[in-house]
């Protein structure tokens, strides 16, 4: 029992210290002592992340800290994930998000920011990367039973891919099951409306918009 508590503290502190190596180490320990992987995430990693998030909310920590904490947590989850699958367990998350930069576009820093903030907010984020063809978004969304698809485009010439994705979502029958949100420097609210997608002007509002749209869907 004491050992378990110690490992949970290590997981929590690794996130609070933004220490990825320590987080991976603690995750391995958790598996070794046979800890429930869901508990390791919820009572260890998430607890640390929540604390960082609250300091961020008060302005005492910056966005770089929040992202570092989220990335630290993700590194640990990568270690724990196989065990979750093996036990056929499910994490309690706000929602599952598939996110990527559309085909033809390799600008991904904004998309990365959104990924990190969604993770920090309690979403399970599947970041498919950059220059991602439409089918890949659809495929992944089906695989993880996504509630949200996020597609980013920085260049005007790549925004048509966001429309292509919107059409593909409709065609594949996913439209009723998920929130489709677009963003990126080349995207205007008018464009989003035209293609029938939600829109957020920056990473912080993306989290807010997704949360409120999911609430409406419930």
């Amino acid at each position, binding site marked *: 029992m004491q050992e378990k508590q110690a490992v949970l503290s290590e997981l929590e502190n690794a996130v609070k210290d933004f220490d990825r190596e320590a987080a991976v180490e603690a995750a391995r320990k958790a598996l070794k002592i046979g800890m429930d992987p869901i508990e390791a995430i919820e009572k260890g990693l998430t607890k640390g992340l929540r604390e960082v998030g609250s300091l961020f909310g008060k302005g005492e920590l910056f966005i770089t800290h929040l992202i570092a904490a989220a*990335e630290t947590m993700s590194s640990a989850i990568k270690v724990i994930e196989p065990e979750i699958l093996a036990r056929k367990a499910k994490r309690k998350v706000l929602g599952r998000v598939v996110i990527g930069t559309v085909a033809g576009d390799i600008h991904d820093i904004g998309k990365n920011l959104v990924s990190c903030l969604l993770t920090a907010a309690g979403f399970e984020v599947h970041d498919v990367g950059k220059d991602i063809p439409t089918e890949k978004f659809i495929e992944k969304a089906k695989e993880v039973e996504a509630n949200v698809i996020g597609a980013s485009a920085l260049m005007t010439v790549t925004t048509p891919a966001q429309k292509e994705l919107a059409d593909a979502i409709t065609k594949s029958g996913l439209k009723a099951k998920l929130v489709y949100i677009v963003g990126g420097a080349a995207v205007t609210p008018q464009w989003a409306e035209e293609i029938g997608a939600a829109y957020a002007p920056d990473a912080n509002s993306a989290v807010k918009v997704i949360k409120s749209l999911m609430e409406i869907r419930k």
Partner: protein
Amino acid sequence: MTVMVGLRNLKPIEVLNKDALSNIHLNSLELLEKMGVKVYSKEALTILEESGADVDRKKQMAKIPPYLVEEALRKAPKSFKLCARNPKNDVKLDGKHICCGLDGTGLSTIDLETGERRPSTKDDVAKSALIIDALKGADLYFPSVTPLDFPKHAHVLHEYDATVNNTEKHFMSGGTYLPEEAIYLIKMAVAVAGGLKELRERPILSAVACMMSPLILPLAETDAMLEFSKQGIPVVAMTMPLTGATGPITLAGSVLIGNAQILGINTVIQMKYPGTPLIYSSFPLSMEVRTGAFAVSFPEATMVAVGHIQMARNYGLPNFGGGNISSAKIPDEQAAYEKALCGLMCMLAGGDICGTIGLLENYTVLSYEQLLIDYEMYDMMLRLVQGIDVNEDTLALDTIYKVGPEGHFLAEKHTLDHTKDVWIPMLADPSPYGTWKDKGAKSVVDVAKEKAKEIIATHKPAPLDRDMKKRLAEIIKEGEKGIPH
């Protein structure tokens, strides 16, 4: 908000080359020797005469030989501190550090509640001093406005009273127009410092004396300056040539005439009270040749101020000139671009006291919103003049290798370690249109208004004890009787 340490790492820009510097210096000496200065103060005439100047008492003219002027320059200290009631707020003037000053002394205030312009009050002095106390990188208080709701002949005393009750920072008195004002002001500062010896050791007070162009050492200001110098209180010798009117229309001529004036007053001060800390100060004005209107921050005025900053640096005298100044009537775009250009030029040129925050319409109108906007500009400029620090840590090579061509730096330890070094605005909003609109589509003036209100409502300065307040009130009462009016 981040407050940068006021350190200049960039090499100051030069508007005068070596020949020009020496040309202006030598011609200043020649003007003082051949034409001389008009000296309205009897005491100053006596000091100059006894030191070896050629004095004509009837004409009130003094011709000062170059050796005297140069001797006086050698006696002036090259570096000193402006002390604060709380020593943690002391300011060092040493040519490397930059500190944030204000200008004054205005007569009107743009009311924070109504937005209307009205005569300024003691409450405005108190509130602007309180804001200065709250702003970490604001180093001293200079009364932005004068209290028109109190007897005018004792305005300096009320300005100081409102200041010490609201900030622990250094007080730089604006215009002192009579030696008696200086005497009572010093009395108040002695009370606050805990004695004359304590005040001399740690001057929590400095005082501006404005000379008159062309080449006049006025009576009251000069005598007041001598009173301050007698007690070792730092004096700010200010020149304000108006190009084309009280100074030549050409930049070099106005730099020359202002420089000669400051060398003249420095000679009076240093010959009588050697070692008096003296700040070389310049707030020139440009004449708008179409109408005769004047402007503190048109290019000619800015360049004369910058020329004076360079002259001061060349003499090794601490300087105070130019800064975030404007002839705009409201905190608008004109105010923003004039203040930014003049302020940055002066800081780049090597200004010691920069900032000059808070006023509009040629130092006559206080705007609380502008005070905060100016402070933000000043804070931004401090970051700019820090330059680029290049070393193993700042090159971040290890991190660059670690991240590789396709990663990102957001969550790297190196990023986190240096987050604290990054400039953070107090007012500016970098968010995109949609987010900004959701937050109320506020202009920077709206944001500054809210911030000013917030500071006034929440900031609590260290209070003076009750006996001290009583003592100061007594001195003010004596002063209101004792100062000629």
